[in-house]
């Protein structure tokens, strides 16, 4: 069982390294090296954020670990802060991070709806929503993640409904009665503007919601 005492686990934006509390530092480092060497290709070219959990590290030990692995891979942030006492909290965080994976805006589950969403109808989903049709005035689209409407969006859309400000709304013709992302609520301008004839994207930057023509490849949101 010796070789299974260091566990790697993908978390949002990095890797969690869980180590056996009884393990000696030298053994830990050698196992870590082996593991990293095995997946060297996977790590190459990117900075890897590591979070060590499972045991306390003294400052000397921390420095030693960082020295050893930084020769193998390019390191991002390394965090030793999560101690054994925090195990439970860590678990909750892991669950939260797992939920992020399932319903996130970068990666996650998506609901596809085919057809027109009409006045009085509501599509509600924790993940991302793709509507293959129109969303008419009086209809509501509520997503935990992004909303993409392959048609006219004339109703209300709320992306990032659980508070995710990274969520975006894209529609082939974006003219919603109201648009919400995260906790920001906006409405269309009162004076009637020309109906757009190109796809548009709505996103949050700072405290403001921006709407821009959607131009593939020039992504800055």
């Amino acid at each position, binding site marked *: 069982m010796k070789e299974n005492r260091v566990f790697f686990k993908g978390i949002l934006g990095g890797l969690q390294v869980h180590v056996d509390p009884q393990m000696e530092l030298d053994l830990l480092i050698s196992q870590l090296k082996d593991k990293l060497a095995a997946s060297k290709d996977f790590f190459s070219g990117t900075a890897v954020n590591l979070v060590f959990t499972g045991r306390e590290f003294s400052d000397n030990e921390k420095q030693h670990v960082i020295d050893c692995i930084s020769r193998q891979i390019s390191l991002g942030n390394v965090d030793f802060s999560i101690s054994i006492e925090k195990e439970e909290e860590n678990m909750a965080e892991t669950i939260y991070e797992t939920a992020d994976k399932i319903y996130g805006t970068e990666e996650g589950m998506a609901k596809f709806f085919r057809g*027109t969403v*009409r*006045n009085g*109808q509501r599509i509600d989903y924790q993940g991302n929503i793709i509507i293959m049709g*129109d969303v*008419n*005035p*009086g209809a509501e689209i509520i997503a935990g993640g992004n909303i993409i409407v392959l048609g*006219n969006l004339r109703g209300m859309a709320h992306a990032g409904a659980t508070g995710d400000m990274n969520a975006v709304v894209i529609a082939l013709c974006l003219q919603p009665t109201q648009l919400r992302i995260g906790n920001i609520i906006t409405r269309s301008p009162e004076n009637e503007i020309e109906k757009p004839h190109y796809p548009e994207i709505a996103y949050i930057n700072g405290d403001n919601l921006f709407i821009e023509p959607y131009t593939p490849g020039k992504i800055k949101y």
Partner: protein
Amino acid sequence: MGEVYVITSGKGGVGKTTTTANIGTALAMEGKKVVLLDADIGLRNLDVVLGLENRIVYDLIDVVEGACRLKQALVKDKRFDGLFLLPAAQTRDKNAISPKQMQELCKELRDQFDYVLIDCPAGIEQGFKNAVAGADKAIVVTIPEVSAVRDADRIIGLLASNGLPYPELIINRLRIDMVKRGDMMNIDDTIDILGIDLLGVVPDDENIVVSTNKGEPAVANDNSLAGKAYRNIAKRIEGQEIPIMDFESDNSLIDKLKRLFGMGKK
């Protein structure tokens, strides 16, 4: 085996009853056997529009409650042979009949008539549910106003969840002069939002008010533009290919309408 159509709109006052009376009359003029069923229990109007109010003895509720036979309740039209009315009860309310009873009634009528047209009450409550329960097809009537189109959209959604996913649209009371000036929603705008097939467009016509008050459907009047539009709709229901708004009686109007419907140029 006849076909059962429900004529509905969501919003009140857009012309469901007038449409039902006129399409029914037009179908009867074509020699079909037609029954018009007024499902607006408690607020019946169809009998008035047809001028048959004083001939009612029994009504829809009497039939479902077994107080009379179906044949006794059917009121035969005074002008057209194949046209009958099954009137609503005026002293009862929408809860006096259930969707299941309505289905059975429609089944019985379908066997005896070529077309059964149900005049649906406004709203989305019990009366609507009753009216759509026995229908095979739905016709949604709207006028080119934002609020009416909203309600039509809602109704189309509800029809789909009641097993009628492909209703057809009648745009009623179109003011051609106003559309031309850009003061009214045009046909393209309306269809763009509702996204269903267009069955017909009925222009706004003063004759309708006159004929409704007199109890004589406008289709019987050769000079009425709206009557002509309803006759065309009836022909389309029978499967004939009639282009939308082909008014031979008025040449200047044809040109306007061709611009309207032709290549979608406003």
